[in-house]
């Protein structure tokens, strides 16, 4: 489903990704872990074609379509993005529009140009939007202005938008990093449910290993732009992470649940 070969990327003189090779099958649910600055978000942005790689890079294929090759993003990228749903840390919804309208934007690419501009979405797409909102559990918020929703609700709206898009791949870039633990669980469970019932391939970047262990059978670990582990999550022991990341590994565990005194935990939630 997703093939990345020899991906290199540098920003100015700083190398962000070194020779990344990875292969993800249809229907997998994969966690991409690593501390901040390890290159996981950059990798995600390359897979959906929002960022172009360096010239000396290989190919990125998603569902057989070439997203980019040798650092050139495909000409048909807009069409290809339709099949790739992206969930962002900051939700990236349009705050002043209603939730329903934001979700309907997922259908833009298959709506005729003028109808799309006027917001006249096909009845079946509107129907689909409401069903998607129902699935993620925020159907009652459909007519609210999106900016009035909580973070967790906005993230679920973003997932609904990807559903309306009929995406076969879901790339979730730090979807729970700015959410409280309870909302984080709801969002991860929603992603898991979509992966199980619809067979959507899910790649999710996380900086807390706990969630990877709970929700994702496979984990790819990045460190300073290199893949340092790729395999079943259950084989990933704490000692191994310590070995891979040294002192950084402390950041990978959810301190809120493990180490923080109860008083601080209350403040963080």
């Amino acid at each position: 489903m997703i093939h990345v070969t020899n991906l290199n990327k540098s920003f100015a003189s700083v190398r962000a990704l070194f020779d990344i090779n990875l292969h993800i099958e249809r229907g997998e649910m994969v966690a991409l872990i690593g501390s901040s600055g390890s290159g996981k978000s950059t990798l995600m942005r390359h897979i959906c074609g929002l960022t172009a790689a360096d010239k000396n890079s290989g190919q990125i294929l998603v569902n057989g379509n070439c997203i980019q090759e040798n650092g050139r993003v495909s000409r048909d990228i807009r069409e290809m993005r339709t099949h790739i749903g992206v969930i962002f840390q900051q939700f990236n919804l349009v705050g002043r529009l209603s939730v329903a309208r934001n979700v309907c934007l997922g259908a833009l690419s298959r709506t005729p140009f003028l109808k799309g501009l006027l917001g006249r979405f096909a009845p079946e797409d509107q129907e689909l939007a409401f069903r998607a909102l129902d699935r993620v559990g925020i159907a009652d918020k459909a007519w609210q202005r999106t900016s009035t929703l909580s973070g967790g609700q906005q993230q679920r709206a973003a997932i609904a938008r990807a559903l309306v898009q009929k995406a076969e791949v879901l790339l979730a870039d730090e979807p729970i990093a700015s959410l409280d633990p309870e909302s984080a669980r709801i969002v991860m469970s929603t992603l898991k449910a979509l992966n199980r019932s619809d067979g959507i391939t899910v790649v999710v970047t996380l900086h807390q290993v706990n969630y990877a262990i709970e929700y994702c059978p496979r984990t790819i670990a990045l460190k300073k732009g290199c893949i340092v582990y790729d395999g079943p999550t259950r084989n990933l022991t704490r000692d191994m992470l310590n070995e891979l990341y040294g002192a950084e590994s402390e950041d990978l565990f959810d301190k809120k649940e493990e180490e923080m005194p109860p008083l601080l935990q209350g403040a963080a939630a």
Partner: protein
Amino acid sequence: MNQSPSRHSLTPPLEAREKFNRILTWVIVAALLVWSWRGAEMKPMTLIRDAGNIGTLLAGFFPPNFTDWKLYAREMLVTLQVAIWGTVLAVVCAIPLGILSAENMVPWYINQPVRRLMDAARAINEMVFAMLFVVAVGLGPFAGVLALWVHTTGTLAKLFSEAVEAIETAPVEGVRSTGASYVEEVVYGVLPQVFPLWISYSLYRFEANVRSATVVGMVGAGGIGMVLWELIRSFDFQRTCAVMAIIVLVVTVFDLFSQKLRKMVI
């Protein structure tokens, strides 16, 4: 000062430099004022010497003569209509031109030329455009509409593009990630973010255009300005006073009204 300055520092203590800068600023300001005094031929004494003349002139304004008030009201209405169309046409043009002059929307080889064009439209006063359009389309309010249109397009395009340059990119990227086209990105990612500001700017320009429309008439572009010019030229100061009173009233009412409206949209 709480911290003692370093003994080995090569730069002078900040305080002395600040003092010097302050004095320099004052010297520059004073020099500028003296220099402009001569160019502007400032003669404050004449105000005192000719106080009698000015007094006579002012007295000539009173009591205001409102006998032709129906004509003034009709022409004032024309002035408002000129302001309305001048503003609306400008808003319509400023939307695409504003986006085309925003750095984050189009490459430099598009935004730079568009910006320079808008600078030109803005740099030249409505009065000048009005004179030109009177020559082109003849005397009357339409020349006024054209003049306000061109000048206001320049102003609004700049204000609109500044709003566009201040948007958040995240929602635009969100729309892009669904496979939307460029225009759809603008319509759904950019416009909802800038809309309240754009409305506010448009209302502000309408306010300003009501004021400008009263003067473009003076060069023959219709409305109350034309009446005003005729009255001043025939030294009919009592009627001039009546017209000025009407202008002040209408402009004030529209300023207040549009201010209220602007507060509502933001």
